[in-house]
């Protein structure tokens, strides 16, 4: 890089007046970034791939709720006698029936049927439908969003359109921020839309069960925790998308980002299980160390944040990891991935 003095300052060639038909927008940093985010979202919206991915996510969500509804329907149409203890003629167990069922036993069976139905169909109703739909979003939504993130970054490098952007005026930092902003918006929209679809479809399917929804749980505090729960779910998608962003920036290809982020996600689960198992059998400092490693994995920390909120939404135990620990770990990952992406983007020569 040239270290020559800036002696041309104050000698800038005056800009010529543009044609009256050219109407320029605001040129401050934030306005440019917001305009670029708008462009990114417009491009995402116009891609067929985005429509296919959204359709897949919605179909998976519908299928999951349809499965719960189908199981609930099976239970609903079953006669209450199905829930009686088995006849001693068929299976000799301590609770088997050696006589024709009495009225009390039939009532008990009807109650058991109702309990089973209530338990199985719980994900169809709030508050469980919220956690259930977020659970599905955390898997299928994550896969789809990683594909999207890899494509909107890697596609620019792979297709060569990156030079189109870099020669139009935005800085590389603005380019990166716009991509991150677009991914953030997509993460939030994915979680919000899929959660709403899940809750609505669940509520509709719940009519099969005939079980009413008790809105006794709904308070201001619950709504706040529900919002936090959704935001954490969006954060989870966003963090893995940042891995895709980093890897597709580094590899200048969509495949690098998508494959890398998904492998990371899958490996986290497997490696976490293996380390915990080894740590369980290997008591002592090494075992403790190995068991502690998964506490610094993205998935475990997002899981901890979700679990710490879900205790306020439906009866659940809080995670062993604190919110602060989880947030710090997530922040460290975000700084690492975004920082490296920025560094690569700033230093790279665009030669394709």
């Amino acid at each position, binding site marked *: 890089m*040239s270290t*020559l003095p800036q002696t041309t300052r104050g000698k800038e*060639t*005056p800009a010529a007046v543009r*044609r009256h*038909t050219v109407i320029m927008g605001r040129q401050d940093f934030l306005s440019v970034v917001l305009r670029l985010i708008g462009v990114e979202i417009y491009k995402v919206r116009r891609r067929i791939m985005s429509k296919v991915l959204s359709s897949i996510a919605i179909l998976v969500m519908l299928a999951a709720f349809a499965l719960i509804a189908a199981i609930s329907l099976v239970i609903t149409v079953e006669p209450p006698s199905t829930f009686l203890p088995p006849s001693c003629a068929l299976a000799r167990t301590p609770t088997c029936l050696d006589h024709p069922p009495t009225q009390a036993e039939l009532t008990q069976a009807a109650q058991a049927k109702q309990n089973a139905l209530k338990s199985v169909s719980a994900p169809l109703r709030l508050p469980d439908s919220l956690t259930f739909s977020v659970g599905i979003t955390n898997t299928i939504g994550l896969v789809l969003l990683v594909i999207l993130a890899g494509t909107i970054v890697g596609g620019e490098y792979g297709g060569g359109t990156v030079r*189109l*952007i870099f020669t139009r005026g935005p800085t590389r930092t603005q380019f990166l921020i716009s991509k991150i902003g677009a991914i953030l918006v997509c993460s939030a929209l994915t979680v919000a839309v899929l959660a709403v679809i899940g809750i609505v479809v669940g509520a509709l399917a719940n009519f099969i069960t005939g079980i009413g929804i008790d809105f006794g749980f709904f308070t201001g505090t619950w709504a706040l925790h529900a919002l936090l729960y959704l935001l954490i779910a969006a954060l989870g998608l966003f963090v893995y998308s940042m891995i895709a962003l980093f890897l597709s920036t580094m590899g200048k290809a969509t495949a690098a980002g998508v494959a890398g982020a998904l492998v990371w996600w899958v490996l986290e689960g497997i490696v976490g299980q293996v380390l915990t198992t080894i740590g369980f059998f290997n008591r002592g400092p090494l075992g403790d160390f190995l068991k502690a490693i998964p506490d610094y994995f993205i998935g475990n920390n997002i899981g901890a944040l979700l679990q710490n909120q879900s205790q306020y939404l439906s009866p659940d135990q809080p995670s062993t990891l604190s919110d602060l620990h989880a947030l710090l770990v997530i922040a460290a990952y975000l700084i690492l991935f975004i920082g490296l992406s920025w560094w690569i983007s700033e230093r790279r020569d665009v030669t394709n």
Partner: protein
Amino acid sequence: MSNEGIAVGRQMYYTTHTNITSCATNRRISGSSDEKHSTTIKEMVVTDILPEYDTSTIISTSRLTKAFGNLVAVNDLHLQVMRGDVFGFLGPNGSGKTTTIRMLLGLIRPTAGRAILFGMDNAHQLSAILQRIGAIVETPVFYPYLSGLDNLRVIAAMSGMAQGKANDTRLAEVLEIVELRSYEKLAYSKYSLGMKQRLGIAAALLTDPELVLLDEPTNGLDPAGVIEIRRLILRLSSLGKTIFLSSHILHEVQNVCNRVAILQKGNLVKQGNVSELLRSSEQIEIRMNEADEAQQALQLLQQAQGQGLDWIANVTIEANRRERPVVIVGAPAQRSAEINRVLAQNNLFAAEIHPREGNLEELFLEVTTSAAQAGGAHVGMEALAETLAPEMPGGGKRGSR
């Protein structure tokens, strides 16, 4: 200032700059390889040049260099493009044209040197510079899933233009210019190569830029498309735009450009006004009735060259299309009568004597071949010094060639 005044001013600028460049070049060549010394010269060159810098300079590069590992793609490049120039940027494949354009646009960071556009250093004020440039770099690439119009909408927003329908008139204007209006709703993926190229030009013109940088804009265009681009360049030039045109089609460049620079293996081997450069390669063709007369004329003119006719650059014999020997004299056209007189005084009477106008193609082949023979990229500075010499006042170097 009158047009004439501007022209004189520019000429003075070019001359001064050429002197400084050549001087610095020679110093570096003759100086030691000591890093400290080299840096001193580098700083001196810039500070020497910059006082001459005026606001009509659109592009000014100083010692611009890019190396990819051991490969020096662009070496010590000094370019000047003035407001209103149609500047042809020539060179064989791999000579560093696209690398230079990418450095000007900030896509590639130079290994050394600097590029100043509109008086701003592109290492520090790239964003402001790019807002005044429309560019096509190699084959234009757009989003295949968007139509031509939607692609332009996206580019308009990226270029800092207001969003929404505010710029619909401008979008229609540029599509009209490149005659893509009737295909504006067709997906870009369905465009032909020529249509893609034209959309690239539309995108470059979108913000009504002051400088239009076109890297091989006629690639993929049919002859009618090439003519259309030529007309477009001339029209843009008449509107006061500065055009920086990189092309392989020398005939096109000769038709539209007022100034050219020629690169060879990353080195600038020629830069100047097209008319002046062509004049420097002017030749006079003499046909004699007999072959032995041609040989005598050759010897006579070679002797005359050595005896004071220093406006004769060289004398050779070639076979014309009918396989007859013709004497080729490197000299300005207005010297034809004088040559005829010299021949007649020695009882040699030419059957035909006429000027052979130089063209860019010949000039290009001449300078690129001689630069290649001079030893490639790493010894390119000597070639640069040599080839710049004819442009130096006094022409001292030229006489010694």
